[in-house]
């Protein structure tokens, strides 16, 4: 049912995220990236599957762990690397950095340094769509930690009360920093929170891009028919600690192994080859192209200038 091209595109997106994070971690370790850096490694299938189900006019709302969403939504890695390096050629002119990366031109309303802070923004974008009778759906990404926060419940309820076209994408990676989800919520699964508010809610394997895609596609279709919102809980797992400097020693080795054995990038490659009949060569070509694009992006970002003080003061005058 899925075409080879489609499956390879999914793979390419996931692999791009994988390479982006790996390269940036190196840059971080070299001291070239400052501040916090939260890699999306291990969660690539969620952002990729959801964004594949969206149309051009749609919006996404991202999180502090947002590079994957940004790439899946079609950002140019050149401007992403530049941003995390604080360069003027970055998406936010180097003023935002990793935690605030946004690309409004393609409908990515941005990452957020406040966990949960973006959720109501997404609800508002959906409200705008409804008022203007446009056909835009908003996919709001957030994780288990954010699901403890009141702003999530409020937003869910608000979207429900107003039947807004929102797909709530709960990326349950089982941790908020080092706090395991079992310690922060009594419910066995988190999608039941949506049900409690009367909202259609599903759970999927967040490491399988096709499962995520199928659920997202259905949810998006419902939203377009004014049958939203829909909540999707995607179970997944980080491949490392909370941020680059966190070794994640608290993550039980066997669970980590389990999730790594179901690595979303590898699974996606498998789908492309088994369902899409892609060849090793197809994959190798993609891998090479992705790596090249990334190398170029890093070079571009490194060479890019920082914003001058003059330009800065010009910009912020009367802010």
């Amino acid at each position, binding site marked *: 049912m899925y075409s080879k091209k489609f499956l390879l595109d999914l793979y390419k997106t996931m692999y791009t995220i994988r390479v982006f994070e790996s390269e940036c971690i190196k840059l971080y370790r070299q001291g070239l990236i400052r501040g916090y850096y939260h890699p999306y490694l291990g969660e690539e299938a969620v952002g990729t599957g959801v964004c594949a189900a969206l149309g051009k006019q749609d919006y996404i709302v991202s999180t502090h762990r947002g590079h994957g969403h940004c790439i899946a939504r079609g950002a140019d890695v050149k401007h992403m690397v530049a941003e995390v390096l604080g360069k003027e050629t970055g998406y936010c002119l180097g003023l935002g950095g990793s935690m605030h990366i946004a690309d*409004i031109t393609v409908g990515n309303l941005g990452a957020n340094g406040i966990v949960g802070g973006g*959720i*109501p*923004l997404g609800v*508002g974008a959906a409200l*705008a769509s409804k008022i203007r009778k446009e056909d835009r759906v908003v996919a709001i990404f957030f994780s288990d930690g954010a699901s403890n926060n009141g702003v999530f419940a409020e937003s869910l309820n608000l979207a429900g009360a107003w039947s807004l076209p929102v797909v709530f994408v709960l990326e349950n990676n089982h941790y908020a920093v080092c706090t395991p989800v079992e310690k922060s919520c009594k419910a066995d699964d988190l999608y039941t929170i949506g049900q409690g508010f009367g909202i259609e809610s599903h759970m999927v394997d967040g490491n399988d891009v096709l499962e995520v895609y199928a659920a997202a596609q259905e949810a998006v279709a419902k939203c377009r028919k004014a049958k939203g919102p829909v909540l999707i809980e995607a179970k997944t797992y980080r491949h490392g600690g909370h941020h680059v400097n966190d070794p994640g020693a608290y993550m039980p080795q066997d669970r980590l192994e389990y999730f790594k054995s179901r690595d979303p990038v590898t699974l996606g490659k498998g789908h492309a080859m088994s369902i899409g009949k892609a060849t090793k060569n197809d994959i190798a070509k993609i891998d090479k192209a992705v790596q090249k694009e990334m190398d170029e992006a890093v070079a571009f970002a490194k060479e890019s200038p920082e914003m001058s003080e003059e330009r800065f003061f010009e910009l912020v005058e009367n802010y």
Partner: protein
Amino acid sequence: MANAKTKAGRELQYREALNEALKEEMRRDDTVFVMGENIGERGGSFKVTVDLIHEFGADRVLDTPLAEASFTGAGVGAAIAGMRPVVEILFIDFTPLIMDQIANQAAKYRFMTGFKGSVPFVLRTQGGSGNGLAAQHSQNLEAWFCHIPGLRVVMPSTPYDAKGLLKSAIRHDGPVIFLEHKLLYQTKGPVPEKEYVVELGKGDIKREGRDVTIIAWSHMVLHALKAADVLAQEGIDAEVVDPRTLSPLDTELILESVRKTEHVVIAQEAVRRGGVGSDIASYIQEQAFDYLDAPIRIVAGHNTPMPFNLHLESVCTPHAEEIVAAAKETVYAEKRASA
């Protein structure tokens, strides 16, 4: 002076002037919409949104669930997506629930996106002590908003200013905090039939005078004008300056007045510590140091939560008498000094 422009016109209540501003802007621009608790059929607790739902329908006049943080955030998100929402929070005392969406999201979004996003968003709310509403319904929190770069903070004192400033606020491309006062809603004043706006950031001389500058905003302007009348009887000619917008502040207008009168009283309803009065005083002493011959006096609310008991509520809220006393002190202090 605003009043000069509008004499002989019709009079409207402050709340009617606001209602008219909303209607006009909603007619002019269909991206403008309003939301808040019970603002539809009920027209809001202070009746600012009456009838809007009949003209503009429930799609543009939204009654919200009791979820301040997220409906405010939804307003911010709608603004980012190209709308011009006017969100009502019933009491400024409830804004502590929405400060993340205001201070971290609305105020910073444009900056954080490298000036690519914009947030044409208006928050309307009201504050001040009134009629025995006690500690959680009587606060003045404008200082919090003034401290956050990226926000405009507006506090009109007259129906004329209220209408003109709300229209400007709605047309402004960034977030504007529009602060009304519960005791002003029923006050009346001239409002021309003809379309007009009042520019953000421009103060207004509400009464000209030579001897002392009284700086006051929102409901305190009424007390300041009363004080000026009392002072006039004693031969002190007070100038009443209403900044109208607290951020950005019309420092030019203020400094001009101060250079003329050389005496300053600032009257704010908010408690003294951390109030906007301190800010204004600190600018004046910095910029007009050589003009001042007596300290700037700040008349402010008493440093406590607001008591429920009516008499004590009044004791904690500044009135014309305290302004008169402060003005006399500063003027006579100088007289003594020069004697």
